[in-house]
């Protein structure tokens, strides 16, 4: 009896079919009041689709939804809102042309004499941010924020309406550990107030840190629900992938780092973006860059790739001085760059999978008449689809129809395809499931073994500690420490960052 009272949401036998794909083949989900339910599944398992149905932006092809035990028909996003369901979508969905406050209060603006009261709106936003401990100016335009800040705005927007159910679809994929902490604080606060939360993530440690229960989907099927306290990473992975996976990180059996400098930066500087960057990467080496949000990691690698062109400093490849002024120069020098923002910087959403895979390297696919050999493109793409287990109905599918994680895999394929000497990866495993992560790490290691130098930015400390050979810590647009990942610990890194923050704070 008490069970009925406590169950706030039940989804039964939900079905959804897309052209060529059965996204959901009869899925069940149960959510209790005041609890956090983790939702796990490989890329393309159907998590986001299920959540979009709950949020009213997709119509299910079958199944029932019960809210507080009552059968409910969610016809559109407004119905969902009315029922107290709030969602943070996997893909950022803010208006770049509006301010932070205007985005948060979109369709919900405070009104005076029939006109929007901007002052009131900004004031309320400021209050909300203070309550949530978010440090963003309410009147700044969203397009001027970094992705991580935009994600925080999304979070604030979702909770601002005091919903009874909050859906969070990979909210931390664009956040660093500090902001993740802020998010967890918010989650706990709302949970204590009786709000229920559905939490999707591919990061196991987060699942264990914040959820009470975990439901698992596989290939659009409901696999089961377990209590977080009574399960293990291994069990969850087995539920997700359907087989045992003994480890999350592959062994780097035989390291093969040549003692020469593939890339070297000397005093690389761009005003307002990065300062006095001295670093090198050796062939076969994986160099990790770690730092907090806004620390400038992305800017440094954009500098290397010629997007944020340096003002001063020198770059050497193989000891020879090179000058890289734009991405074209960078690619000419065999550098590849997987950007952190796949939607805006990585993919052509309206183009097909194979066109995305071949786009950085189209010259390779020309026949003797200098015409594109589509067969070869398709064959190559199919190889990548197999290697990275990209879930798609085919090479001709347009990329916007893929799940987030699979889109990320397409971006990776694009850059693996040019067979670079230096591979820069900015949050490469963002949104990627554990199984595929393993494949990607393996590919990185294989590339390294062939003599490729890799720079990897990651906000996941365990990942960066396990995968990189050498670690640079970035803070306030500078390199502040070089560490050996084998010797260091999460605690040591955090003290570097915070200590630096304390000492340099007043002087900056």
């Amino acid at each position: 009896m008490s069970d009925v009272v406590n169950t706030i949401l039940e989804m039964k036998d939900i079905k959804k079919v897309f052209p060529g794909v059965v996204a959901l083949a009869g899925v069940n989900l149960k959510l209790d009041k005041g609890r956090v339910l983790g939702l796990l599944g490989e890329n393309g398992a159907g998590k986001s689709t299920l959540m979009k149905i709950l949020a009213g932006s997709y119509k299910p092809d079958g199944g029932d939804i019960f809210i507080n035990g009552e059968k409910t028909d969610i016809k559109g996003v407004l119905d969902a809102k009315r029922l107290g369901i709030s969602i943070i979508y996997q893909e950022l969905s803010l208006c770049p042309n509006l301010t932070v406050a205007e985005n948060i209060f979109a369709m919900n603006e405070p009104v005076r004499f029939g006109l929007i009261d901007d002052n009131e709106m900004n004031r309320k936003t400021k209050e909300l941010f203070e309550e949530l401990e978010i440090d963003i100016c309410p009147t700044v335009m969203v397009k001027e924020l970094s992705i991580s800040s935009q994600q925080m705005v999304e979070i604030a927007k979702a909770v601002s309406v005091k919903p009874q159910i909050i859906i969070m679809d990979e909210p931390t994929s664009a956040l660093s550990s500090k902001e993740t902490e802020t998010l967890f604080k918010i989650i706990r606060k709302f949970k204590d107030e009786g709000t229920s939360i559905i939490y999707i993530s591919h990061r196991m440690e987060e699942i264990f840190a914040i959820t009470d229960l975990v439901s698992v989907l596989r290939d659009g099927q409901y696999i089961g629900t377990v209590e977080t306290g009574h399960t293990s990473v291994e069990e969850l992975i087995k539920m997700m992938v359907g087989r045992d996976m003994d480890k999350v990180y592959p062994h780097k059996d035989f390291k093969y780092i040549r003692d020469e400098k593939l890339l070297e930066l000397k005093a690389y500087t761009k005003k307002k973006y990065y300062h006095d960057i001295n670093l090198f990467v050796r062939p076969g080496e994986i160099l990790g860059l770690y730092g907090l949000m806004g620390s400038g990691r992305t800017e440094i690698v954009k500098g290397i790739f010629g997007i944020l062109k340096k003002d001063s400093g020198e770059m050497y490849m193989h000891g020879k001085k090179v000058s890289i002024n734009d991405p074209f120069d960078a690619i000419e020098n065999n550098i590849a760059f997987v950007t952190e923002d796949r939607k805006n910087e990585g993919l052509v959403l309206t183009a097909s999978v194979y066109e995305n895979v071949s786009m950085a390297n189209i010259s390779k696919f020309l026949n003797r008449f200098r015409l594109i050999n589509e067969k070869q493109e398709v064959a190559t793409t199919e190889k990548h689809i197999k290697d990275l287990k990209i879930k798609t109905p085919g090479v001709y599918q347009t990329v916007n129809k893929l799940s987030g994680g699979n889109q990320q895999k397409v971006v990776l394929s694009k850059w693996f395809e040019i067979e670079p000497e230096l591979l820069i990866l900015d949050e490469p495993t963002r949104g990627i499931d554990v199984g595929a992560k393993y494949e990607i790490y393996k590919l990185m290691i294989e590339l390294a073994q062939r003599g490729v130098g890799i720079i990897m930015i990651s906000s996941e400390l365990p990942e960066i500690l396990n995968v990189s050979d050498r670690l640079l810590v970035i803070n306030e647009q500078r390199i502040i420490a070089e560490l050996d990942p084998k010797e260091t610990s999460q605690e040591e890194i955090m003290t570097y960052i915070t200590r630096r923050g304390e000492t340099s704070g007043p002087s900056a």
Partner: protein
Amino acid sequence: MKQVGPQLKNFTNLKFVKSYGGVLAALIALMVLFSFLSPHFLQTNNILTVLAQVSIIAILAYGMTFVLMIGEIDLSVGAIVALCGIVLGVMLSSGQGAVVSIIIVLLVGALAGLFNGFISAKFRIPTFIVTVATMGIFRGVGYAITDARPIQIEDPIILFLGNAKLFDVIPVPVVIVVMLLIVAHVLLSKTKFGRQAKIVGGNKVAAEYVGINVRTLQMKIFMITGIAAAISSILLTARLYSAQPNAAGGYELDAIAAAVLGGTSLSGGYGTVIGTFIGALIMGVINNGMNLVGMPYFYQQIVKGLIIIVAVYIDVRNKERMLSK
């Protein structure tokens, strides 16, 4: 009138300069230039004439700003002006009173706009194509109604609206254009409706996610554009003392140019009615100034093209500078 207060103070503060600095600079530069080139340019009378001349395009451009705001376009507004003018002429000459006729004309404009909005939203056809098509349709209907003949207008109320001067100085169209400026500005930048338009223009997906019915909004926006065209047609008809089926040819491009000069983005999400008004003034000043200087027609076309490019460039550069501060 009370609710207009809050944003009127913008006129005196930095935000105003920040928003309109580039286009204002272009306008002032042009005015200085022409006042040197022609002694007649800066006369009060001439300035008022320019304002009256500009009123027709300006009102069209207000409407256009709304469509551009949601990332769409309306190439049929010139044709709607012509059609509405014809309807006005037919109504008046069939003995209807001015007020009834005006109401009917506004209705026809709204319906024409609704047709555009409905067809494009319902059948998901790009508005560029829908309105290129309806441009032909509305004009065709206009021609067919009168068999391409103009209709003379003698109604004193209509003629008053287009030609009279308040206190013997200020042309009535100028009063109307300024009043509509305030209404349109408040509607676009201060109401929920305007905000929804901005959201749709910024990110259609996000708009749907927050529960905006994008299709309904699009229909409403096209109705506004249609109504603006209808108002414009009343002033134009009065100004010409007749309804002309071939009136307002190519005005759609002038209206778009005015809006873009004023900083409205063609891809949606950015734009202000005040900027659009300034943009329309720039166009009007160029035309008037070159006429006063007596520049030959061919060179007028060339110079006008160059000035538009330079003016938009000033605005683009100005915005970039503002952002980088």
